[in-house]
């Protein structure tokens, strides 16, 4: 009895986080989820840099909205700023259409100009506006629990929780309702318009959602780190799967876990929460980039090396098949004839021996039955390019996996 009570006190005092900490982590997680969903589609549509442009160019919208409402959390400000985001997209597309500059140059021209206007607006009205560019660009999650929503004198929790929560709710509803349309228009624009849903509407819908999310998230994590939360989880997930639903789920999981572990890293280092969330995201990406099973750098490099060896093997077997002369099949002769380095030659020989394709007798190499069959099949495949011939070889050799 007494022990359990002591334990309870111990837990409340030490182990359990205080309510502000829980709230911060909750907000961070919601922001991560709200960003990861549109981010996935942006990455798949090759429009990742648009999110960077939007996150910068909402600044004038935020400033003007702040002039009008004097409240960073007002819905009007969010709509106004999101509208600036859409203007950015429209401007970028207009410049792209003139064909005066290459596509990405248009993005790079539009957002710094709009951002500059925002900075100047702030600087000119520094006396009236208590708005810091630092705050807009970098955000401060630690202050989020201080701005509370009070209804009829009852504390309902931090305001930003409600804002990001409702944005997330809208995003999820839209994604579920229009999942099929989004999917089709992302992967095949032509098919989408022939099926009767306008890619233009979906495009601007996605842009609007991204803008609103960016605005809703910027005062928690800052404009630049919104970009990280949008792109990094989606890109990491894309290295792990090619299934859209799985990618969405993975992106959300990666976003949330980096949000929570990032919070504790910041707590430990006494540094910016947004910065450490991004750092965790970066570490996760680095890890996946290196070690992802089929698309990671190490896997790709291994595959490339293996394919190289297998091409050499095929050349080697062909050579054997074409020459019956003992002289041509002598181990030393091969090295100078096919012009391989010693290491490559050994690797190829070993691979062939391991697969029982050759036998070596008194330094003379000859094809086995299996090797002979393999070579004929491979040549057949190269000539006819018919897949069915080599189905059984796909498991053993990277070369035939396309």
């Amino acid at each position, binding site marked *: 009895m007494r022990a359990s009570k002591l334990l309870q006190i111990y837990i409340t005092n030490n182990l359990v986080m205080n309510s502000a900490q829980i709230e911060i982590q909750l907000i961070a997680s919601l922001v991560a989820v709200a960003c990861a969903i549109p981010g996935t589609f942006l990455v798949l549509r090759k429009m990742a840099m648009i999110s960077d442009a939007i996150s910068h160019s909402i600044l004038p919208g935020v400033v003007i909205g702040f002039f009008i409402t004097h409240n960073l959390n007002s819905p009007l400000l969010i709509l106004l700023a999101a509208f600036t985001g859409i203007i950015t997209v429209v401007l970028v597309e207009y410049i792209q259409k003139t064909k005066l500059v290459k596509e990405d140059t248009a993005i*790079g021209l539009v957002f710094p*100009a709009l951002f500059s206007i925002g900075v100047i607006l702030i600087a000119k009205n520094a006396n009236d506006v208590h708005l810091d560019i630092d705050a807009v660009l970098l955000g401060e999650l630690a202050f989020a629990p201080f701005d509370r929503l009070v209804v009829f004198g009852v504390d309902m929790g931090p305001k930003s929780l409600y804002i990001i929560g409702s944005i997330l709710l809208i995003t999820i509803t839209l994604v579920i309702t229009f999942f099929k349309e989004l999917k089709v228009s992302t992967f095949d624009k032509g098919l989408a318009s022939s099926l009767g849903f306008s890619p233009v509407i979906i495009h601007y819908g996605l842009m609007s959602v991204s803008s609103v999310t960016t605005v809703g998230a910027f005062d928690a994590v800052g404009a630049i*780190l919104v970009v990280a939360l949008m792109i990094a989880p989606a890109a990491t997930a894309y290295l792990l799967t090619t299934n859209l639903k799985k990618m969405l789920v993975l992106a959300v999981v990666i976003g949330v876990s980096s949000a929570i572990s990032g919070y504790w890293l910041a707590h430990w280092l006494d540094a910016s929460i947004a910065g450490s969330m991004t750092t965790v995201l*970066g570490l996760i990406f680095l890890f996946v980039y290196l070690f992802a099973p089929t698309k990671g750098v190490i896997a790709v490099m291994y595959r490339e090396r293996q394919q190289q060896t297998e091409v050499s093997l095929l050349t080697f077997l062909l050579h054997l098949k074409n020459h019956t002369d003992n002289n041509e099949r002598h181990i030393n002769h091969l090295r100078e004839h096919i012009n391989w380095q010693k290491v490559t030659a050994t690797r190829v020989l070993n691979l062939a021996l391991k697969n029982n394709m050759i036998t070596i007798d008194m330094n003379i190499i000859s094809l086995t039955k299996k090797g002979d069959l393999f070579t004929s099949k491979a040549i057949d495949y190269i000539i006819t390019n018919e897949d069915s011939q080599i189905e059984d070889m796909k498991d053993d050799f990277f070369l035939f996996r396309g």
Partner: protein
Amino acid sequence: MDLQEYISLVFSDYTLRTITFGTAILGAVTGMLGSFAVLRKESLLGDAISHAALPGIAIAFLITGIKDGNVLLIGALISGLIGTFWIRGIVAKTHLKSDTALGLILSLFFGFGMLLLTFIQKQPDANQAGLDKYLFGQAATLVESDVWMMTISTGVCLFILMLFWKEFKLLLFDKDYTKTLGFNTQLIDILITTFIVLAIVLGLQTVGVVLMSAMLLAPAAAARQWTNSLATMVFLAALFGALSGVFGTAISASQNNLSTGPIIVLVASVFVMFSFVFSPSRGLLFKQLRFIKNRRDLELHKTLAFMFHIAENHKNISHPHAIKILNNFQGYTRKTLQKLVKKNYVTLHGNMWSLTDEGFKTASNLYNQQSRHE
């Protein structure tokens, strides 16, 4: 303050002189190297690199503990280069596209830099104030040695650019050909990338992380509209960049509360807009005018051809016809008829028109125009 007064102030006032020369040189070098970035379709690389430089600045400070500009610049240069080559690695080795790679490196490096900066700020030995000027840039903090540093770097860039001009140009427009000629494309590539990174890093202190990409892009994008020659483009971009620096500094000096960086970017954007609209060969205005003129010519030709087909059926080509019959024809308006008269293709007699010899000849050759020009 009038212009003359301002110019004399530029030469007498230390701060104003330093900032003016600093931003002018910076504009010139970024414009020059930005031309290569734009033509290589790496426009947004500037944005990514300038963000990726932040952790380098922070780490350089953490290691050395001093706030010397040049040490921090070396840190920024290294981390910018790491970022650039990682972007290349992502694009080459995985199926992620370049926009994703750029956005990733940009935001992840910047976030890490933020973590380090806030970590440094909490350190007890508070010698770190002012590191955050690299975020937004403060042209006002430029000193003469910074300007010298920029001048020397620009000189080195210019020298190497001239020395390897042929190679750079070749690589820019035909990479495969360059390789077959036996040039070490990788080395040239690394060289030009390093210079682009260097230019960006040099500008961080003045215009800051966020606006640096515009310094790289805007002068080059403006210059591209006026010429199709690389040398002219590089020269024009350097000129536009330098002018943006000078005008931007002047405007921000003439009023209170105007930071230099954003003004320079806006001036450069004005250059871009002006070039987009008024460039004679590519500009929107002249393109529209040419479009209208072509349409008018086409209408004129259509009317002439219609008349020709009527006149063809008569022995005497100058046989007069009623104007009324033209009314059925879509291209016909009173204006086109008058123009045809002016060109001496058609003569009018009251309500009748008739083709002249010249008009008949032109009309019969209308569809042969292509072959005639050849």
